[in-house]
């Protein structure tokens, strides 16, 4: 029982990190109908910048630099590459993001090599004791920051002009354009926010208990992809719920690995995708996604 609760808390805190990353997928998809497969590499870029700059800028300054770098990178991808491909279908653009991912990931892997970089966070390997349970401080910080960021995002999405523009464009791009909403700016804004969220997710994705910034982080961050899909790719709520589900499920699977050893080792890596497939069999548009309607 003790172990269960501990895993649950740890899973939820990891889940909030996934939620931040999954939200990036969702924002980009809502605004531009593109699935951004370069998201993992943009996250890695953010984490890499933090790891490289915390010595000179301090941790807070480094996080700011990382967030800005990732946001800038995302905007460049949108403005310089995707927007120029006028007339291309969103499927084509999605495949282009795979190419961008390969480029970015290759360059970052070349720079990082086999090293494991320290993110320079103030929490190190400290552990917080909640009653009889112990949780890494970094995870507590992750949960707190993620909840604050998600709340701020939700409020902005609901109440600000930016949010109204985003939601109008997501629902009917041409209708929004006719109202004078500039779709290009909405798209660039969405990519910037998604990039910033990815960098933030990247920071907590590389703190204790994970070893640090490695070249493989971009790939493992893609675990947030099934979170976004199972929540429904166009739902903000879905991203959060999906993130939490994936966080809990992976943590539980790894935690109880010895009990389910008959299924083989490394199940934690596979289980997000298993859950995603199961959810999609039950609800093809994800938990909170909009059903696709085609007119004949």
């Amino acid at each position, binding site marked *: 029982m003790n172990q269960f609760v501990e895993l649950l808390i740890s899973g939820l805190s990891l889940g909030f990190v996934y939620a931040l990353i999954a939200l990036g997928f969702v924002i980009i998809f809502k605004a531009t109908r593109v699935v951004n497969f370069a998201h993992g590499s943009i996250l890695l870029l953010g984490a890499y910048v933090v790891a490289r700059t915390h010595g000179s800028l301090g941790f807070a300054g480094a996080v700011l630099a990382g967030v800005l770098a990732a946001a800038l990178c995302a905007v460049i991808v949108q403005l310089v590459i995707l927007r120029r491909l006028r007339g291309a279908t969103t499927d084509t653009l999605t495949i282009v993001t795979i190419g961008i991912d390969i480029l970015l990931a290759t360059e970052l892997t070349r720079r990082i090599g086999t090293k494991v970089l320290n993110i320079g966070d103030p929490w190190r390997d400290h552990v917080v004791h909640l009653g009889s349970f112990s949780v890494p401080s970094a995870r507590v910080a992750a949960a707190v920051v993620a909840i604050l960021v998600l709340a701020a995002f939700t409020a902005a999405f609901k109440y600000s002009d930016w949010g*109204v523009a985003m*939601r*109008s464009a997501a629902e009917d791009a041409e209708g929004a*354009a*006719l*109202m004078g*909403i*500039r779709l290009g700016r909405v798209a660039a804004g969405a990519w910037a926010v998604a990039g910033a969220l990815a960098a933030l997710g990247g920071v907590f994705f590389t703190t204790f208990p994970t070893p640090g910034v490695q070249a493989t982080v971009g790939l493992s961050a893609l675990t947030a992809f099934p979170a976004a899909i199972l929540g429904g790719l166009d739902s903000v709520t879905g991203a959060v719920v999906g993130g939490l589900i994936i966080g809990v499920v992976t943590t539980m699977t790894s935690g109880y690995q010895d009990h389910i050893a008959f299924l083989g080792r490394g199940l934690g890596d596979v289980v997000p995708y298993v859950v995603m497939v199961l959810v999609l069999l039950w609800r093809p548009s994800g938990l909170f996604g909009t059903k696709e309607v085609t007119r*004949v």
Partner: protein
Amino acid sequence: MPTLTEEGVNGLTDAVLHVRDLSVRYAGAVRALDGVSISVTEGSVVAVLGGNGAGKSTLLRAISGTLGLQGGAVEGGEVTFRGQDLRGRDPGTVVRSGIVQVPEGRRIFGELTVEENLRAGGLSVRDRGARSRARDRVFELFPRLEERHRQRAALLSGGEQQMLAIGRALMSEPELLLLDEPSLGLAPKVVDRIGEVVREINGQGTSVILVEQNAAMALAVADQAYVLEVGRVSLSGTAAELADTSEVRERYLGIPGGDTDDRPHPPHAPAPSADSANGRPAIRELDVEALTVRFGGITALSDVAFRVEPGSVHAVIGPNGAGKSTCLNVLTGVYAPTSGTVRYGDKVLTGLRPHRIARLGVSRTFQNIALSPAATVADNLLLGRHRLSRAGFLSTGFGLPGARRERKREQGRVAEVAGLVHLDAQLQRPVAELPYGDRKRVELGRALCADPALLLLDEPVAGMNPDESEQMSQTIANVRAELGISVVLVEHDMAFVMRLADHVTVLDFGERIADGTPAEVQQDPAVLRAYLGGSPDSQEAAG
């Protein structure tokens, strides 16, 4: 066709908007506008009339800068607003220069609240004070929106949604308002109210371009009017002048100008032979009984019934939003009805999957051409033979003799069908290279390749010019005479329907309002009302 007033309005210098000799093409293929010129005088209401595919919406898109979103581009001519060239401007800039378009089909943001919709409309205005003043004015014009300002827009009724769409556009306080078919699918009373609203908005100093199929309403509120036909201005003049022309009356009602019906009726089909010898499904009667279809809260079809006699041409007509396409989609199994049954001979079609229905010999065409553009006409037609082909993946891949024989046989049949729809010369050309009218023929040919006993045609002449439409009606009459099959067609073009159909069912707001021979239906007051709009007592004025 002649211009009624020779100098028209083009000569006037106080026009705010000038469109001169505008030509527009979509995706490099279909020419939607061809040398269109219109102008809007300061403070006036200009009506643009025309059927589906006449280019009305394209004209508005060219003004509002949204052509690019649809893959269209201006080929020639110019659009100027207060002396500024609007070509190549993005929609955001056009809105900021004072022109806002209310799109066809309202396109409100259903997930957003009424208030948020209005906010979205005002985002281009920087000054917060101006925004809230605009909102107060919108609420004054539409008190209903204020009452329901916290509700999700999707929950509003059709009329309220149209009010919201107009209100949303007014939030940026435009000098010129473009309205694209605001009366589409609305009840006559609501249509009257929209006419009043247009007058009120105009009274406050906003110029309006009103694009409509509802000629009566549009001509009642407009100062000037233009009729578009297949991308050209075919008539123009003051609204009063146009309302008097027999052309307008004929075009919107299919009533021949004064003369009695002297058009040749297509020869009636030979009695359908028991054709099962060559594997063709037998031709049976189609019975639609008490059909009701609801989508969420919207009733698309309500208790609709009609019967299609074997070998006859049966037309289902009605204004936009009447439920015609829904009806076809139920017949082909794409939609499941909420209640009611469709029987074909002794088989019940309701509840069957689309491919099972196709196997019974029911074949259809699509309103918005659904062909593979890169494939040749022959290959597109061959696709229609799919249901009747036996050769599998491997036998075709290895070129086994059976598969080769079958291919030869199928190609022979494709050539026959191509002859029937006059596409023999185009067989080896990719569909993308064909003009619009020919693509519609390929649609028809593909449906015929399935050797149907019942052919469903979804707007076969939408967007065609009178010549193309005449040819298409000949082709369909030929097909029917040659094959003896039953045809159900959904269509807007009244003249076409009256020429071709043996029997007509008229739908409006999902209900059957008339059923009978073309001549009977044409005289039916309910039909006149549905097509002209207006309440029963205003009908004389309209007609």
